[in-house]
């Protein structure tokens, strides 16, 4: 479980996050949603320590991350897997070497054990046999799956996914969403997904945090987000004409 309490973050004179608090439960897919530029990626980067927070606390299963020194933070980070928006695979390494990297760096596993683990992770994301490809030879969806394989290689307790569906076609998006959901339930980990893809929200969102103007504007689940009367959420969720039609038809059905 990850808890954030009263997180504040500014860049020079521009405050991005205002007293954001929330709890992200274990074994659930937690979504942070919101329009671009509202502070959701900044919140996630604060949580993993890529940005120093100005105030507040971040607890990883009760351990105060913000109060830790560099070595202690490094230990916590080894329990975190992260899928980046652009996958962030190491260009000079093959698919296999990318997944192998954290294992060779941080474990005392033998070569055989590492190879078995790599094969298992690649198989888990349906990439068996793609070991020797370089990231530049992989499609966007494959790169995301390699990113997931690398993120789960160390058996993380916490999985962060930054816009996992950006740049992907709808079918591949559903595949990636399904993988994130399955991995979360299978390994009982705390997963946090940053997204503004509404189909992801409806597919995998067990707990949804809506960030607006740097504030925790709304929290709930995928059922309650459909029925909310919060105007900012309505603007966000039903931004497209298609979604507005769905809302209208849903409201008409309710009245009947």
């Amino acid at each position, binding site marked *: 479980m990850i808890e954030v309490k009263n997180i504040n973050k500014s860049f020079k004179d521009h405050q991005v996050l205002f007293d954001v608090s929330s709890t992200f439960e274990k074994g659930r897919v937690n979504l942070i949603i919101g329009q671009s530029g509202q502070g959701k990626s900044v919140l996630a980067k604060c949580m993993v*320590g*890529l940005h120093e927070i100005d105030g507040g606390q971040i607890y990883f299963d009760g351990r105060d991350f913000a109060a830790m020194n560099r070595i202690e933070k490094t230990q916590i980070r*080894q329990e975190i897997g*992260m899928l*980046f928006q652009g996958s962030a695979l190491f*260009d000079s390494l093959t698919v296999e070497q990318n997944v192998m990297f954290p294992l*060779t*760096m*941080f474990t005392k596993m033998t070569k055989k054990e590492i190879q078995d683990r790599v094969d298992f992770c690649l198989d888990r994301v349906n990439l068996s046999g793609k070991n020797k490809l370089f990231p530049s030879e992989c499609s966007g969806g494959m790169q995301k799956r390699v990113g997931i394989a690398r993120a789960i290689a160390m058996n993380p307790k916490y999985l962060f996914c930054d816009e996992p569906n950006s740049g992907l076609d709808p079918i591949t998006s559903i595949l990636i969403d399904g993988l994130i959901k399955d991995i979360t339930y299978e390994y009982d980990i705390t997963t946090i997904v940053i997204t503004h893809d509404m189909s992801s929200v409806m597919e995998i969102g067990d707990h949804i945090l809506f960030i607006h103007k740097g504030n925790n504007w709304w929290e709930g689940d995928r059922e309650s987000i459909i029925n909310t009367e919060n105007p900012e959420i309505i603007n966000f969720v039903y931004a497209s004409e298609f979604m507005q039609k769905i809302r209208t038809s849903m409201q008409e059905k309710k009245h009947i």
Partner: protein
Amino acid sequence: MKILGNIGKYFLMMKVVFTKPKKWGIFWQLLLNEIQLIGINSIPIVILMSSFMGGVIALQTASNMSSPLLPAYTVGYITQSSTILEFSPTIISLILAGKVGSNIASEIGTMRITEQIDALEIMGVNSLNHLVLPKIIAAILFFPILVIFSMFMSLMGGYISLVLSDLTSTETYILGIRAFFEVGNIYYALTKTVVFGFLIVSVSSFYGYYAKGGALQVGESSTKAVVVSMISILIANFILTQMILL
């Protein structure tokens, strides 16, 4: 003020770079890769530049020696001393600042903007130590070898140019190379090279690591890295010459 800020940031970066590698096995592997990229891949340009440089020094000295009071071996002596003292360590380092420096800044800069450095940090890897230390050690180890190679090629270039031009005899040229030869000058040149190698790699890594934005900004960082590395080399050359030779 920005310059002072950058100097401070540079030294803080160096403090993080010079920490114990997490796994020595991985470090040695990275070091060998960097020796290949920074050192061995630079051999062709060093051969080309040094041969022509030596050839031009010998030709210019020979063609400008009009006084009969100057001994014939002066051509070899001047080629030898100018090559060892300045041309090989300084000019080759300036050329390497262009080749290696821009390569390092754009490589690390691209890693920064594509979040590869963030990925390393999230895994708990000290990204500066992992990326920069092997490059610095490779430069410190291999640049002196390149410069010794350059000295040899420069003297060879002078020899060949004299054979082709027939301005003076090759026997007197070799005599000149051997005359007044001081081993201390080699040590001086290699000391300078180690400092220059360190400056090229660390300055270029600094500009790459703190690159922001997109491809355009990585290009700008790469240009800045080369310019600042070259200026640092010239300043360091002046200071080292004052300290060691005078």
